[in-house]
């Protein structure tokens, strides 16, 4: 109750910092906010050129490879960008935290929310892709009423990002190494998440290795999202349960760790 009251008091701050992060991200760039959709568009084109021949094509059964890839890339990019920014947020706001009392979770949270807003804007690229391929291609995405379920994987993605972001931001205050370690981990994650391939295509025989790939919550989330927007079918309910549970567990761990350690932050930043 006390926490909610405090949160309510500082809701303006959350709003202002989210606003600030979005505004400053593209300030001084000529194209400004336009980059939010230009960037995924261009990187997707590159990835399609590089991997399209190997993993795309009729036999793959992905319906439409560019859309398949874009879905994965958007989700992966949001997750890594928001968690990385959340991770650095406490140290970056050191000057404020040292002088004024503010609830500290505002900083990781506002970074993730700001990224979420730009992520939502960048979804317009996906809409453009889908409209284009629906009308002008012989591999149209299967658009069915299941597309209305697409906010579910997105919200779970937000939940997982908040949880991981809180854990990382707590760790980063005490060990700056986490920054570099996580950078490496993200590169690994890029290949472990089925962004440009399908797990089935890899033909992995080893069951343990396959399980390890599927334990990645981003795997469940991208698969669910693609089911909704690309394959036009109901997503696998196991994916929903697993990723939701993963999200809730990370948020709980993140909150507990953050609350236990937040009074010590100031001594380390």
């Amino acid at each position, binding site marked *: 109750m006390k926490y909610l009251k405090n949160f309510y008091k500082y809701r303006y701050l959350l709003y202002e910092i989210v606003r600030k992060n979005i505004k400053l991200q593209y300030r001084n760039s000529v194209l400004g906010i336009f980059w939010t959709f230009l960037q995924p568009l261009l990187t997707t084109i590159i990835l399609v050129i590089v991997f399209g021949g190997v993993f795309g094509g009729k036999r793959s059964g992905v319906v439409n490879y560019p859309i398949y890839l874009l879905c994965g890339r958007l989700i992966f990019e949001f997750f890594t960008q928001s968690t990385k920014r959340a991770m650095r947020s406490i140290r970056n706001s050191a000057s404020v935290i040292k002088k004024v009392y503010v609830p500290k979770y505002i900083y990781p949270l506002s970074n993730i929310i700001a990224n979420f807003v730009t992520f939502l804007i960048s979804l317009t690229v996906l809409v453009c892709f889908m409209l284009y391929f629906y009308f002008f291609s012989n591999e149209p995405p299967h658009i069915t009423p299941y597309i209305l379920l697409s906010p579910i994987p997105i919200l779970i993605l937000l939940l997982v990002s908040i949880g991981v972001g809180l854990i990382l931001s707590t760790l980063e205050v005490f060990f700056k190494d*986490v920054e570099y370690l996580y950078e490496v981990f993200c590169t690994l994650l890029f290949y472990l998440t089925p962004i440009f391939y399908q797990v089935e295509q890899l033909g992995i025989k080893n069951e343990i290795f396959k399980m390890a790939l599927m334990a990645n919550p981003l795997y469940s989330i991208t698969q669910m999202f693609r089911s909704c927007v690309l394959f036009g079918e109901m997503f696998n309910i196991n994916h929903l349960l697993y990723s939701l549970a993963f999200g809730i567990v990370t948020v709980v761990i993140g909150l507990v760790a953050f609350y236990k350690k937040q009074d010590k932050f100031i001594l380390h930043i």
Partner: protein
Amino acid sequence: MSKPAIVVENMSMMFNLNKEKVDNIKEYFIKLVTRKLHFTEFWALQDISFTVEKGERVGVLGFNGAGKSTLLKVIAGVLKPSKGSVKVNGVIAPMLELGAGFDMNYSGKENIYLYGATMGYSRKFIDEKYDEIVEFSELKDFIEVPVKNYSSGMRARLGFAIATAVEPEILILDEVLSVGDAKFRQKSEAKIRSMFDKGTTVLFVSHSTQQVLNICNKAIILDHGKLIAQGDAKEICAQYDRMVKGGK
């Protein structure tokens, strides 16, 4: 009788001074395993108790390193006391360092809203105060300029204007009156004095007993983390002057 503005009870603040700063995992584990994680306890504040009633202006005197800034940080809620408790009734405007909540890439105007939000005020509320803030800070022509291009005096003026315009119930001033030119200093002293009439509680840190006498009606002296005297501003200032002269 209304509740006192600030109640500090048996408050102590301890820091761990480690000989080297350990901030990477490898070092931490090596030292943890080899039991070389030495900490030296340092009590910045010891067993401090005092009460500030609403509308009182308390001067905090003490030599360098006596724990004045630590005390203000604990009261502002930035640091959590190791022992004891601090209770604060009312909205605090901490001016530990003017312009601490500013974002350098943001313009002066945007920073007004950001700083306001840092103290927990809504956009609408700041809208009402906006003209007053700009006028007081004398930055009308520079308000759209990013704060990184401001001089330190301009930054301090803007910070002071925002922190006082929102009419906080408790104002914490950490040697802030020493910034700016003489003209602005006079103006800000006048502003702070005008706030007394509205019943604002003030905590004021200074090295100058003259300033304390000008502003405060009560004072305390800190020495090596201990509260050694509290009471009427005049008596305490006289005692502090004796301490300065006596070398003790």
